[in-house]
């Protein structure tokens, strides 16, 4: 179905960006906030309308397209500016505009004192535009526009407080790291395009590619899949390109919630789900995705155990949870991955916004060692934060439980027991670090310094209302994807609404069945792990007042420092890649090769000429009569030559 209103989803945030970007400086804060929020709300409303239109269609005809114009056309290569909405897109759209809208509202309160208020909302609207373009585009190049666009907004927003060097550095690091991934991504696209072109179909349109993909040999698809996934590791902060995300916490907290937790970083997962037609034909590539996802999940969780900055803990938690999503899509359970993407968007956005509310209350303090006992002082924040923490830990009944469980079940069912084990251990660590955070922040004795303690206050309504909405979603959001196993208990057939809704998009993916008994045991085991994690955190950080933690650090200082310093990966990248490259560039290429070899040759030839002419010019005595004499001798010689010849 072709509907021209799809483009309005993009248009509103773009207009918001232009208005605030150009005129925002002269507008009042209220007007700026109104423009930005209206833009996103209109976009959200359009999405809802289109979503309702979409689900009113029969299941196999759920596709809305909107061809705006032909963007690039060169020879047989044609790339349209074409948007499409299928069930997968609609889910992403609802998440992006819904969570995005809540975060916009929250930002009005959070940023109200900032001088660059208009610039902030302009960037935020631009981000919404790029992210929606990423999700809506119907071909991989247009998607790449959104893909780089969100990277740009991420760069601008991380470096929002550009006067801080660390913020400016973090922004640059994010952009460049993403560029490394994008380089691989583009190569993957080129390889795919050229192998399709060699079969006579030069197309980059998702639908067209899905039809023709079987023409491409499997080994090529594997390479394409891995290259595209490298792009995803950049955007979605997976090993080995995750390094930018923890630093990205330099940005304003709502930005961390929106971009670096709920939406942009999940683009990699979305991309793989979107390219599922390719990945199901490239099992090796999928294997790589799942393994990297599993390793990242565990790796980031271990770092998260010891971080002391509230946002850094959440950042590593995000990386870890993204790893889960990649496990999901990597084992072929695309809808489980997307399901976790959705629930994660709810509870992680909530965690970040809650953290923002805490930071707001403590006048900018981010170190959890200087918090504690905030439960009664900021009760709303505490309540929603707790809800999100329970959700992420996988406590039964909350959103995170359903999505995480379906990923782990799929991993086990597909025979990837190793990856399942990684995810299983991570579940324990997740519950542990997140409740460590909860206990250190909200419970126990207050470690807040006296000056700040006097100013602690609950955030205004404009900030707490979005928190409450997100909390409701974090608690109830999982019920649209209740595993059939549990659905059967109450006789609810098709309880996994989410998977069924997405099924037409992932029709090429084959599900794995496993016995009910196995599935039940797995579920019970992961519930046990979640509770164990929460209990351990409670015991160590509340009951025993951190004594076990301190003694562990004392017995294993090496391990502790390794984790605290994030396995020294930044330092390794710096010494192995960045420093040598800069040295070679400056001293070998520039100061040696350019100046000595090339210019040496150029200037050398000039000097040789000069040297020779310095010698030769001695012949020019300046004596007129000597010249005449030489001239005459010349004339006589020539005459003599012709006469005597």
């Amino acid at each position: 179905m072709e509907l021209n209103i799809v483009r309005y989803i993009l248009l509103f945030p773009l207009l918001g960006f232009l208005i605030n970007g150009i005129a925002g400086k002269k507008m009042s804060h209220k007007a700026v906030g109104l423009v930005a929020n209206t833009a996103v709300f209109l976009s959200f409303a359009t999405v809802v309308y289109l979503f309702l239109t979409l689900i009113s269609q029969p299941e196999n005809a759920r596709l809305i397209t909107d061809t705006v114009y032909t963007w690039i056309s060169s020879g047989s290569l044609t790339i349209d500016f074409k948007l499409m909405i299928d069930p997968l897109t609609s889910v992403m759209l609802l998440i992006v505009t819904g969570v995005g809208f809540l975060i916009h509202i929250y930002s009005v309160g959070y940023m109200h004192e900032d001088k660059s208020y208009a610039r902030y909302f302009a960037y935020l609207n631009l981000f919404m535009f790029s992210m929606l373009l990423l999700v809506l585009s119907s071909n991989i190049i247009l998607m790449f526009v959104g893909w780089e666009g969100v990277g740009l907004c991420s760069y601008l927003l991380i470096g929002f407080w550009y006067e801080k060097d660390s913020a400016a550095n973090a922004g640059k690091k994010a952009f460049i790291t993403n560029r490394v991934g994008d380089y691989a991504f583009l190569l993957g696209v080129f390889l795919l395009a050229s192998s399709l072109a060699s079969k006579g179909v030069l197309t980059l349109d998702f639908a067209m590619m899905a039809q023709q993909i079987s023409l491409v040999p499997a080994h090529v698809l594997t390479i394409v899949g891995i290259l595209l996934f490298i792009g995803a590791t950049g955007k979605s902060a997976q090993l080995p390109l995750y390094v930018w995300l923890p630093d990205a916490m330099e940005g304003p907290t709502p930005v961390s919630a929106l971009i670096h937790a709920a939406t942009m970083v999940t683009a990699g997962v979305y991309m793989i789900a979107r390219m599922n037609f390719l990945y199901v034909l490239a099992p090796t590539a999928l294997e790589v995705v799942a393994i990297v996802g599993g390793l990242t999940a565990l790796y980031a969780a271990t770092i998260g155990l010891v971080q002391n900055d509230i946002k850094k803990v959440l950042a590593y938690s995000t990386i870890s949870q993204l790893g889960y999503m990649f496990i999901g899509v990597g084992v072929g359970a695309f809808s489980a991955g997307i399901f976790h993407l959705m629930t994660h968007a709810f509870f992680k956005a909530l965690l970040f916004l809650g953290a923002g509310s805490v930071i707001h209350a403590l006048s900018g303090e981010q170190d959890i060692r200087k918090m504690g006992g905030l439960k009664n002082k900021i009760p709303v924040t505490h309540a929603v934060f707790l809800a999100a923490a329970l959700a992420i830990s996988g406590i039964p009944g909350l959103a995170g439980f359903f999505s995480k469980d379906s990923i782990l079940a799929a991993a086990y069912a597909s025979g990837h027991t190793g990856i399942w084990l990684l995810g299983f251990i991570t579940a324990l660590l997740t519950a542990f670090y997140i409740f460590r955070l909860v206990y250190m922040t909200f419970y126990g004795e207050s470690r807040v310094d006296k000056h700040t303690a006097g100013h602690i206050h609950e955030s205004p309504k404009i900030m707490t209302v979005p928190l409450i909405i997100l909390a409701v979603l974090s608690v109830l959001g999982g019920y649209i994807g209740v595993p059939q196993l549990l659905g059967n208990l109450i006789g609810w057939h098709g309880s996994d609404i989410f998977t069924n809704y997405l099924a037409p998009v992932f029709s090429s993916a084959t599900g794995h069945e496993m016995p009910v008994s196995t599935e039940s045991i797995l579920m019970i085991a992961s519930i046990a792990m979640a509770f164990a994690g929460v209990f351990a955190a409670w015991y160590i950080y509340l009951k025993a007042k951190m004594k076990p933690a301190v003694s562990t650090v004392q017995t294993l200082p090496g391990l502790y420092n390794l984790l605290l310093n994030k396995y020294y990966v930044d330092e390794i990248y710096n010494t192995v890649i960045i420093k040598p490259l800069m040295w070679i560039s400056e001293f070998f290429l520039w100061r040696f090769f350019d100046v000595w070899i090339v210019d040496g040759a150029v200037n050398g030839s000039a000097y040789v000429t000069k040297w020779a002419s310095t010698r030769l010019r001695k012949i020019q005595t300046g004596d007129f009569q000597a010249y005449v004499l030489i001239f005459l001798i010349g004339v006589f010689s020539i005459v003599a030559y012709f006469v005597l010849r």
Partner: protein
Amino acid sequence: MGFKENILSIIIFLPLAGVLAGAFINKDNKSAIKWFTLILTVLEFIVSLFLVLWFDSSITSMQFVEKYSWIPVYNINYHIGIDGLSLLLILLTTFLTPLVLLGSWTYIKQREKEYFLWFMVLEAGMIGVFASLDLILFYVFWEAMLIPMYLIIGIWGGPRRIYAAVKFFIYTMFGSLLMLVAIIYLYFAYGAQTGTYTFDLLKLYGISLPLHVQAWLFAAFALSFAIKVPLFPFHTWLPDAHVEAPTGGSVILAGVLLKMGTYGYMRLAMPLFPVAANALLPYIALLAIIGIIYGALVAMMQPDIKKLVAYSSVSHLGFVILGLMTLNIQGVDGGVLQMINHGLSTGALFLLVGMLYERRHTREISQFGGIAKVMPVFATIFMIVTLSSIGLPGLNGFIGEFLILIGSFFANPLYAVFAGTGVILGAVYMLRTYQKVFFGKITNEANSGLKDLNIREIIVMAPILIMIVWIGVYPKPFLKIIHNASSSYIQYVKPQPSQPASAGNILQQSQMPEREK
């Protein structure tokens, strides 16, 4: 005679006529001179827009052809005409020149009259190069345009201007003399073969020479253009010339003059000697790729912004040449588009650097920091141009780089694998510089009182920004203009199994009736 029939000549000679008229303006009446040249170049731009209006992108032959006998003894003709490639480059020239003049409004503080008039001579020369279809005419314009540039660097340049001007001049002269020898050889070779002695480019396309002769002639042309592009390792004149040249000189040098090298490859070197071109093509592509990476790496470490932009030009022009070497439509389209893109974004960068220099009288990156605070508009524009330069999708740079990379991947995946690293490095050096100049706290007191851009400067930048976004968002009209030029280029150069080296002569049938006098 008529406006439409002679529009190309009008475009070439209008600035020269302006120079003659402008010579009578009193040199102390500075604003009169500035306004006169500005209005004339704007008029020139408007006239050149008629080319677009009347240009028919559906035909492959040369359009707006004019042919008059010039030196009949040697059958040298005043023969001009354009295709899509020339059209875009002429437009780029007429587009940039008024902006450059407006940008130099207060930058130039001595001998203004000569400066502004020389720019119009330069404009005429550049347009002549892009319009010539006769090799001698081409050569005359090619050399003629050296003189104003030499003077612009040598008179209004920085402290080492003489060194830079002489280096620029001799480097280029060296190459063009080889080209002249090759042109003359070509004249006699063609005459010996067919009995007609001619410098007519369109006729010479049909020549078929033995490989070793082609190789020598190709080498002469290729070297001449490689210096102009500049292709690694013939690039060392460029940083010096850019650093010393005044803003306007740098803009035109980077924006248009460098394109004459890539234009030369596409119009002369490759199609004239297809056999040799095909044999040597991988080596040129290799040099281009080395240039891409090398230029980017060296740019990364430069302490002077202008030098940095100069080295980044080496990198970007490497992309253009790589695109032309792919011999497939995507790569060549991208290469041509990237010529325009580079003209816009690098031209804009030089203008911006010039504005900063006018305020602070330094270009050392380390002297800046925190500029975004005091010059927000400037910082925003600089950011957009930076993003265009690093090929952010949605802006012009991406379209060119994307097409070049996908084209080179089709030609040889390794090309794209190596050239693609330039995209990463591009982001590294541009963002590093941007951060050092604009972000952080203001550490240098001298920067705290800087004034943001004034209206005149914003007017200079606005058209370029519009073009940057336009090409990025809707490149189709540009690609449409380019398309026939690139496909006939490919047709000439690409070895065709059925037809040997001398390719089909589509371009020979000119659209308009030729008038011989």
